[in-house]
């Protein structure tokens, strides 16, 4: 599972708590790996470009290192397309996985999220996989997220998230609720207990999908994600050396 920021052990542990949401499939182990550099957040095309490169670099060696699948710990699915073009093992994006699953659970889904600045990352993935028409709405609670500490100290956000999710169901016509970030996993249980519609927790979903793909012998289509004629892994690695140096100098 590729975490999209350089995180310390405590911060990684907060992300790894997603694993407690459901028992892992038998024989499955999940390791979390942070990136070496990152955008400060995911609110601008400037950030998305950097995110793609740093997550790509972080996952590039996964197959050689013996992993059976890669999951990206962000619903922006950053780095997924480029990693698929290099790796034969499944590369799972929680964004596209949760929207596709939502369409198996209801007619239309809604996305509840922390702040409006994340709306474009949903629109990007939805248009890429052609499911924009199945999205009943996106609602934000306008609470600034923290990609290091997640929901810690944000108890006031829980009732707001619940209200927003209820409005997606009653006003917008959503049959299923998707979470707008894997970092919102700590809110999942509260929302599911208080709502009558399914609530998808994208991070845990992604490693169940990864296990299913590996077990079914399925992976991404090479015609949709062709390999480069000239791969440049050394160049990408040098770019991250440069990025880490530049960030260290600040």
């Amino acid at each position: 599972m590729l975490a999209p920021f350089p995180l310390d052990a405590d911060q990684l542990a907060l992300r790894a708590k997603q694993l407690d949401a459901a028992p892992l499939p038998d024989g499955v182990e999940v390791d979390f790996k942070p990136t070496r550099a990152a955008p400060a957040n995911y609110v601008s095309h400037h950030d998305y470009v950097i995110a793609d490169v740093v997550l790509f670099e972080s996952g590039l060696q996964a197959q050689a290192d013996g992993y059976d699948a890669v999951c990206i710990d962000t619903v922006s699915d950053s780095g997924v397309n480029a990693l698929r073009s290099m790796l034969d093992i499944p590369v799972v994006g929680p964004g596209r996985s949760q929207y596709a699953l939502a369409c198996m659970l209801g007619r239309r889904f809604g996305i509840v999220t922390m702040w409006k600045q994340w709306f474009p990352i949903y629109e990007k993935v939805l248009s890429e996989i052609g499911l924009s028409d199945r999205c009943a709405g996106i609602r934000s609670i306008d609470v600034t997220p923290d990609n290091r500490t997640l929901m810690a100290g944000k108890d006031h956000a829980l009732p707001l998230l619940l209200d927003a999710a209820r409005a997606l169901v009653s006003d917008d016509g959503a049959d299923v609720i998707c979470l707008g970030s894997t970092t919102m996993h700590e809110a999942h249980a509260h929302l599911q207990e208080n709502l009558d519609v399914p609530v998808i927790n994208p991070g845990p979903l992604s490693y169940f999908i990864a296990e299913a793909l590996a077990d079914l012998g399925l992976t991404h289509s090479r015609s949709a994600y062709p390999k480069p004629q000239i791969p440049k892994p050394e160049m990408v690695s040098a770019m991250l050396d440069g990025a880490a140096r530049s960030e260290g100098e600040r």
Partner: protein
Amino acid sequence: MTKILVLVPFALDEAQVANRQAQTREISLRPDVTFHFKPVKAGPTSFTSPHDWMLLEIALLEAGLSAEEDGFDAVVIDTVSDSGADALRSMLDIPVLAPGRASLIFSLTLGRRFGVMAQWEPALARYEKVLDEWGLRSRCAGVEHFDTPPDFANLIAGKQDEVLPKMEAACRRLVERGADVICLGSTTMHQAHGHLSSVLDVPVVNPGPLSYKLIQTMLSLGLSHSRTAYPKPLVEKSAMVHAMLDAASAVDDD
């Protein structure tokens, strides 16, 4: 004087850049406008895979980052992949023209359905991506290729006799499939535009020169991209992006 920066998506030498610069002579440009061509520091060698597209995004972002402080009034990306355009828009207030989406959308002002002529089979995937991203699939009569590997440095110079008939045949297949307008699938095809538009009965859109016209129009009308569609980053990482491309360039030179 109006200065426009044209970003070239490959690390080309001066003569190769001059081949691309020749596009500006195919149309009349305002005398007070000058075009300056700048290649990326490093980038992908091929352009047929998500790996390549991603590398080009960051390479072009880096190449254009300082355009505004360098005194340019606008930026044009010299590739219909529009690579780097969205990220540059998030950083710059001056207009950033993306010839891919511009030529497809412009073609719909000339006909009901457009056809795209691609270079070769491995190039088809990136048009699929653009058609999905812009929701233009229903207005696309098809994408046909002329089965010739690209030569990013020399383009079709010296190979006209062999290549032009193949290009013409691909365009005619597009017309048969219902295209009212042909869009050239790459700015590198500009040398074929004169021939194709003389032998075909439908308009042929040449994305490079079109983008030079459109950017002048935007400047004249005082228009630039919408900040709500392309928000600025909360924390800019320009130094980091420059360091990444400097490091990439050092490896590429080895």
